[in-house]
């Protein structure tokens, strides 16, 4: 049974991670390829806050979100003049910088040893942790859905569709971008915090670029700018490798097949359903 609970928890975490990614990519048209770095920053922040400073789990997870948000504010201010492909490149570079910090700031992150810890009593069992994380996931989901449906969500859509026209309506598009990236990173950080307590172990390898392929698969499969799509696709994409795990294959090929299956998902979707299941927009 425990196995089932952990898979469910993982779906929830990847749902928030992917939805926050879709928030910037699909809803706001901002290509932030550093999203996994914010996920990782959240995980490390939560782990360090909890293990070193003894901060309660829920606060540690909140700190994770706030920390990721603050760093994203710094990043977007540095990338002030960048758009489109250049923003993508800069944020990709940011990912590698953060990844190498995870590896090399050994005093803080434990380097390749990572940070190992145990959960407090009230969420010790996999089932109790599922309930705990489900609560947070639902809160995040509610909040993000409200945000994209609000007038602010329409401003984000306008930013994605035509920044110049948005500015001609008197909106400061740069501030809107900062807010979009901050909100997106805040939830990536929350997801990271949840992930740290889920694994009870934080290691640089969990935040390698390959994870970006996973959330990209989810967002593309579900569709850019669709909350419903991201929810459905999170289930499918997280369950996919779990299904593969039960195939009668040698363990040495399972890893590569997993990676291959994500690539296959992206290619099939792009070929046959370019907007994904429920996609509303195409990016220019």
């Amino acid at each position, binding site marked *: 049974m425990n196995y089932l609970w952990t898979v469910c928890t993982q779906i929830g975490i990847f749902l928030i991670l992917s939805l926050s990614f879709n928030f910037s990519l699909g809803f706001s048209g901002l290509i932030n390829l550093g999203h996994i770095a914010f996920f990782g920053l959240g995980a490390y922040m939560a782990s360090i806050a909890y293990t070193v400073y003894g901060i309660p789990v829920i606060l540690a997870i909140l700190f994770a979100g706030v920390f990721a948000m603050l760093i994203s504010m710094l990043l977007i201010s540095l990338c002030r003049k960048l758009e489109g492909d250049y923003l993508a490149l800069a944020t990709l570079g940011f990912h590698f910088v953060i990844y190498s910090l995870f590896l090399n700031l050994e005093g803080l992150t434990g380097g390749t040893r990572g940070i190992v810890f145990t959960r407090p009593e009230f969420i010790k069992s996999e089932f109790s942790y599922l309930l705990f994380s489900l609560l947070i996931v639902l809160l995040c989901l509610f909040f993000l859905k*409200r*945000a994209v449906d*609000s*007038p*602010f*969500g*329409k*401003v984000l*859509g*306008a930013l*994605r*569709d*035509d920044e*110049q*026209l*948005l*500015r*001609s*309506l*008197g*909106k*400061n*598009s740069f*501030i*809107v971008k900062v*807010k979009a990236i901050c*909100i997106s990173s805040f939830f990536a950080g929350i997801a990271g915090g949840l992930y740290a307590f889920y694994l009870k172990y934080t290691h640089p390898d969990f935040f390698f670029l390959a994870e970006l392929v996973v959330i990209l698969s989810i967002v593309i499969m579900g569709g850019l*700018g669709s909350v419903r799509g991201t929810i459905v696709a999170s289930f499918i994409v997280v369950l996919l490798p779990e299904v593969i795990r039960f195939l009668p294959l040698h363990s040495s090929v399972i890893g590569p097949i997993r990676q291959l299956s994500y690539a296959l998902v992206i290619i099939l979707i792009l070929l046959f359903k370019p907007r994904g299941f429920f996609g*509303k*927009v195409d990016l220019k």
Partner: protein
Amino acid sequence: MTSSILDIKAIHKSFGGNKALNGISLGIEAKKITAIIGPNGSGKSTLFNILTRVLKQDSGEIFFKGTEISKKEDFQISSEIFSRTFQETRAFGYLSIEDHIKLALAKEDSNFFRSLIKPERFGKKIILDALALVGLEKPLESLGGDISYGQTKLLTLAMAVVKSHEMLFLDEPVAGVAPFLRQQIAKTLQKLRQAGETILLIEHDMNFVVRIADFIVVMDAGEVVAQGSADEIVNDKEVLRCYLGR
């Protein structure tokens, strides 16, 4: 001697070696419709873009009601005093017509928490009135990317009009719009003028311009070559030569 609301002083602008504006000086009167005409490439849109701060001039100054505005950013100017449309049609491809109008009306929608907790609300009637003003008959949920060229022109005109402003800039508002709608837009602009609007517009359609403009400015090769009332301009030999090609 009438006083102008917008004063443009010696604006120069080059793109690489290409001189788009060569010392434009103009005074635009309040509560009038002023039209800028001139051949393609004469710098009309460039002047508009500089006035609304979308582009920065190389030199020269702009004063609105006596205050220099040439150092402000485009979104500031747009949120405070100017409304504008663009020559090329633009709309938000994946937002509904209704959302377009709401974006133009709203002042607090960039405020994230306010927008979540206590969003500004606009009734259906305000939206429908805005569309009726320009004669745009389309379901409110049609997407910006799915409507025709002419309809997009109308939509952006409606947005510019309903957004709060003190002066309206329209870059070729009826280009590509069906003739019967031109009539309606001409009427709408006249109504706005009667209500006290100050309008500066660029237009190619001479008939349209002569019909609605109080004052006409003729540009050629980045310079103002003539200005005056419609009658004066129509009978001006220089204008006939360079603009009408006679």
